[in-house]
């Protein structure tokens, strides 16, 4: 701890710095997030502040890790109106905390958690206060619309890789996740082979490449008093077709229980689509959404596959990685279900 205090003193230009609180966030299953309380003197004044350190894990669900991507994106998105935490600096030197990390503002509020213990209670609501839910719904749509409308080129985000017009957005993502699944040792599973052939044959055209969050949903933002204070977890940020993000957002796994079936526990699908179109100026394309529904289920296999592989190959890991690896059965079932729902292997009878 003394080493970290010395490092933070130097970075902050502070004297007599002490870490008064230090805790690891247990809710994240990928990057490691630490909350720190600091006390120090600067310019003759006594300062007390809280910061967040977000560090690459030794291994996890989304390998390979590069925390600098998230840092660079969040930093570039300052002053765009998107609710994000303020970033302070990125540290690539692994000698400080074992692996690279970045430092950002601590945003106060709550992160909603999908409780499995209440999932069979028909009266249970993740956000029981109606006024709060409606306000969050509006800001939820507003933030995704803002993300999709970012002028990513002007913001210096080309480093994320422009897939170009046409089928590049879809093909690039399919190839990326194909490689992830293959690296994890799951490329030779029949359901994967079947899905991959179809995805490679049926990529939709994209006429507008947008910045995509990649994991946008309730549970990945900090809320306070009915407002979204910060959109979190940008680990899967990339450039691509906005319908990829929309398809992810509306996936059943993130919805409230039937009969409401609200998008991210916030609003009905038709309201979400109407608000999104109005706020973003981007038209919902239901046919593309079907393709990306299969794709997102394919991607969903890659995440537990990576976890299972990390658990298999790296000893002394947090057992959470093993638990997540076990979820591959649910992910493969989801993929097969989406194939059965939308896909025909026969030429010309795709989605």
């Amino acid at each position, binding site marked *: 701890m003394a080493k970290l205090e010395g490092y933070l003193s130097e970075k902050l230009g502070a004297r007599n710095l002490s870490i008064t609180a230090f805790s690891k966030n*247990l*809710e994240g*299953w990928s990057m490691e997030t630490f909350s720190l309380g600091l006390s120090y003197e600067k310019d003759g004044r006594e300062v007390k502040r809280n910061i967040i350190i977000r560090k690459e894990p030794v291994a996890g669900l989304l390998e390979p890790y590069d925390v600098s991507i998230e840092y660079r994106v969040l930093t570039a998105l300052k002053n765009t109106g998107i609710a994000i935490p303020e970033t302070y600096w990125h540290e690539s030197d692994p000698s400080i905390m074992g692996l690279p990390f970045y430092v950002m503002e601590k945003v106060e509020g709550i992160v909603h*958690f999908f*409780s*499995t*213990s209440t999932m069979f209670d028909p009266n249970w609501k993740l956000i029981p206060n109606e006024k709060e839910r409606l306000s969050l719904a509006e800001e939820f749509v507003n933030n995704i619309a803002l993300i999709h409308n970012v002028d990513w080129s002007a913001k210096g985000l080309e480093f994320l890789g422009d897939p170009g017009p046409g089928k590049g957005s879809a093909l690039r993502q399919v190839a990326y996740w194909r490689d992830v699944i293959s690296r994890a040792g*799951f490329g*030779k*599973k*029949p*359901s*994967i*082979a*079947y899905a991959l*052939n179809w995805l490679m*044959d049926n990529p939709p055209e994209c006429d507008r490449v947008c910045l995509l969050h990649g994991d946008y949903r309730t549970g990945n933002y900090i809320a306070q008093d009915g407002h979204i204070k910060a959109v979190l977890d940008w680990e899967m940020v990339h450039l691509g077709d906005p319908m990829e993000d929309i398809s992810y957002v509306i996936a059943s796994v993130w919805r409230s229980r039937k009969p409401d079936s609200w998008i991210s526990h916030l609003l009905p699908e038709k309201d979400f689509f109407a608000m999104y179109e109005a706020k973003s100026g981007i038209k919902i394309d239901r046919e593309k959404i079907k393709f990306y529904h299969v794709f997102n289920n394919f991607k969903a296999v890659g995440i537990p596959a990576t976890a*299972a592989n990390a*658990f*298999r190959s790296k*000893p*002394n*890991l947090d*057992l*959470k990685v*093993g*638990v997540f*690896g*076990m*979820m*591959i*059965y*649910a992910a*493969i*079932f989801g*993929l*097969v279900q989406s*194939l*059965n729902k939308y896909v*025909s*292997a*026969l*030429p010309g009878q795709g989605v």
Partner: protein
Amino acid sequence: MFISTDLYLKRLMNTLEQVIAPEIESDHVRGQVFAVIDLLKQLSDRVEYKQFIISQDIEIGRDLIQRILDAFEGAGCATPDDLRAYIGQMDNGAAGKGLALRTKVEEMLCAALNYFHDNINKLDGNAAKELDRVIREGITKIAGRDLTMMKPPMIEKISRSKR
């Protein structure tokens, strides 16, 4: 199971011994943790995959490969020699057994699915449709069986564990 039972048990024992036991204040409870480790050690050489899972994967995989080859050969198409030869090896018991066989069957089935995908236009519409239905039925059966064996994960207790 994609990871061996043995490896899961080793990881569990390691975490109990290296991470959990040192944090436990009560001598009695720490002793109980070591008892759990001991039991897991004793069990580790005796637990096995459920045989029916491996057998079912192999049986479904073999059947699908055969159905794909038969459909194309019936339409007068040449099929990959290695796939037909592999079916022969399986039938005369020369293809191995257990998990290694399951892995190889999955690999060969992927090759058969790729062949089906690349040559689907050589089948007439109804034959292609029927073969596609059979393939999906097979992969759905395995995925469905694996899902029903899953227990609800204790995500909330793991992530927000409170005394």
